[in-house]
């Protein structure tokens, strides 16, 4: 059945990988595309990057991090369950070309959307150096898959529990000072992208960032996803999600992500309470 969850893997306590039947999207999606899902009839529409697909099997892969009610609902779904609505592929695909050496930096769950992009750049004949960064060892995901498609994989953890100790920007600087980087791509929490972008700007390396703003429809209809890029308002869902990182107003984006902070917190606590009551 369409939208059925066929496989589920817990990457860590808060991150799951889902393989879902979605034949049309599996066929038409490209690296950089995302979907909007609605888990159930009361659910909100949330954007998730397509981390991979198998057109033959008609399946797509999503990697979801539990951060609030909607992502929690999805993370708690089981194999055999059906997601009510999945629409996509949305957004502009990544412009993949041969440029030389790519520095790909993924933070937290941002590693999932980066997987197809790294794969595509490698396939296009680039040398790909990948940095995965997270707070600690447990939060590093997709390490093997990334290693497969990268010429070099560097792991950074804030607490040094795995790989090298330090922030993603420390790892980036070390690579940039060591070899010539032609282009960089960064995906992760907004705050990480802000500092990663400042780092590549310092060295004049053209950089793409994949933005994760709040969205509703994902088709350019509502404007919830708007960001300022080079002083102009852009809609992330139709003009992006990837933009020239050095032009993005990350401070504005970070504040806008907090627009519903109060309501989200109340809703999440109510949801957790409800789940505990049921169990």
């Amino acid at each position: 059945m369409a939208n059925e969850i066929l496989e589920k893997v817990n990457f860590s306590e808060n991150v799951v990988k889902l393989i879902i039947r979605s034949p049309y999207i599996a066929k038409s999606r490209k690296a950089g595309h995302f979907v909007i899902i609605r888990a159930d009839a009361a659910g909100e529409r949330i954007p998730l990057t397509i981390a991979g697909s198998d057109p033959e099997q008609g399946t797509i892969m999503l990697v979801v991090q539990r951060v609030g009610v909607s992502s929690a609902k999805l993370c708690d779904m089981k194999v055999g369950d059906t997601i009510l609505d999945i629409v996509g592929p949305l957004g502009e695909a990544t412009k993949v070309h041969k440029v030389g050496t790519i520095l790909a930096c993924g933070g937290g769950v941002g590693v999932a959307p980066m997987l197809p992009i790294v794969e595509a750049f490698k396939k296009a004949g680039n040398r790909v150096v990948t940095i995965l960064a997270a707070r600690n060892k447990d939060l590093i995901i997709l390490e093997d898959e990334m290693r497969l498609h990268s010429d070099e994989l560097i792991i950074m953890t804030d607490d040094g529990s795995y790989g090298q100790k330090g922030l993603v920007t420390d790892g980036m600087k070390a690579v940039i000072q060591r070899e010539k980087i032609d282009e960089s791509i960064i995906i992760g929490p907004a705050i990480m992208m802000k500092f990663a972008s400042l780092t590549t700007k310092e060295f004049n390396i053209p950089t793409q960032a994949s933005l994760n703003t709040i969205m509703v429809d994902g088709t350019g209809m509502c404007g919830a996803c708007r960001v300022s890029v080079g002083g102009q308002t852009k809609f992330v869902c139709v003009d992006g999600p990837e933009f020239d990182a050095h032009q993005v107003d990350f401070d504005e984006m970070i504040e806008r992500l907090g627009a519903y902070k109060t309501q989200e917190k109340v809703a999440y606590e109510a949801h957790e309470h409800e789940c505990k009551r049921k169990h």
Partner: protein
Amino acid sequence: MDFAEYLKEQRNQEWRKELRSNIKSKDRTAIEKVHMPEENPHVRNTNNIEVNTGLTMEMAMKEAQRCLDCGDPTCISGCPVNINIPKFIKNIEKGDFLAAAASIKETNSFPAVCGRVCPQEIQCEQKCFYTQKLNLPSVAIGYLERFAADFERKSGKISIPEISHHNHIKVAVIGGGPGGLAAAFDLVKFGYDVTVFEALHEIGGVLKYGIPEFRLPNEIVDVEVSTLTKMGVKFVTNFIVGKTATFDDLRVEGFKAFFVASGAGLPNFMNIPGENLINIFSSNEYLTRVNLMNAAKSEFDTPVFSGKNVAVIGGGNTAMDSVRTAKRLGANRAMIIYRRSIEEMPARIEEVKHAQEEGIEFLNLHNPIEYLGDDQRRVKSMKLQKMELGEPDSSGRRRPVPIEGAIEIVETDTVVVAVGVSPNPLIPRSLPNLNMSKWGTIVVNDQMQSSIEDIFAGGDIVRGGATVILAMGDGRRAADGIDQYLKSKF
């Protein structure tokens, strides 16, 4: 038989003649126009119940007597789908309400919707003999249309048109708004195998995500859509043509023609400083959260922010819908900010009147020039430029000009920008060869055919923002065009 002959033949039927002779014209014109019963403004502005409650049977029959069953029914020329207006109204006069509904449905598949949201006062009712020649209030055509449709729905005897034959030719309709639905209705009647593809998770387009419950309950849209389902139309939601599958993919699947009614769903902003502050929304976002996603109900996950001091920018239907929604979400102060005077607002007069009754404030001749935020970038106030009316502009309305130095600061914690929409670019972007106008609308000929021969288009994507009934008229014309095109090919 052409249309004029058909009207004449119908008018000459015995029962119509008899009804005409029952009451003298003089007595008919002496009847006072019916008033639509409404919910109390101070009750209705705290909930989502429908504002207009509908005519009673007695009211409808009385109002129907006013119609003179004119020899030259000019009202019909004001209706974009040419409903046989005197025929349905005389059926109401006679008390045969189901026949009235059936007469409307000869050309309009969604009377319950049109009877509620058509700007009748500038369409059919403006062309009524009463308005044109007698200088009296027109026959309440819209209210009567709604009455007949509501009666039919409540009777549980909704007529499902017979489909005489199936030709098994596949036609795709892109967009589940009024334009697409009207086309689907006619195409399926002609015998085609029709599939409607819709990007969102619900069918209805603006009728669902834009127009609020208190003007058009979603249930009414659903009932009209279920009629289509019963007639055999297939609906595929969560499917974006051009993204989920291309036109070529669909051609391979056997679709022989396409009707694009993808709407004008791209919100305009004013590009003034501070417009990206938190709690500044497009009307599309604000209304979608509330209408499509049920954000105001606690059992749904989608949040909506609606503060105590809500400013809505604009003067059209969308602005009225937004500001009245804000009031219902609990705003103490819900205001319209519009740069022209109240007389020049494009919103329907009825909507403006309803808004006024509900306690909406109107700051006319005010134009926002900047938004100011607090330390968390939440909007806290706006700078308004006061305006005065100058010379008439190209639209014939007097141009608002800024009064130098007259700037006012007004506090606000929520702003809804409702300054118009542009055509949705998803389809054009997926079809580089499609002939487009410089406004981003699809260019079509009289048959609604685009520059690509198997692709027809209509509604807001062609008109750049119009009305429900104009979109539906386009849908019907396109259905004819597609029928002719396919007959010439197969």
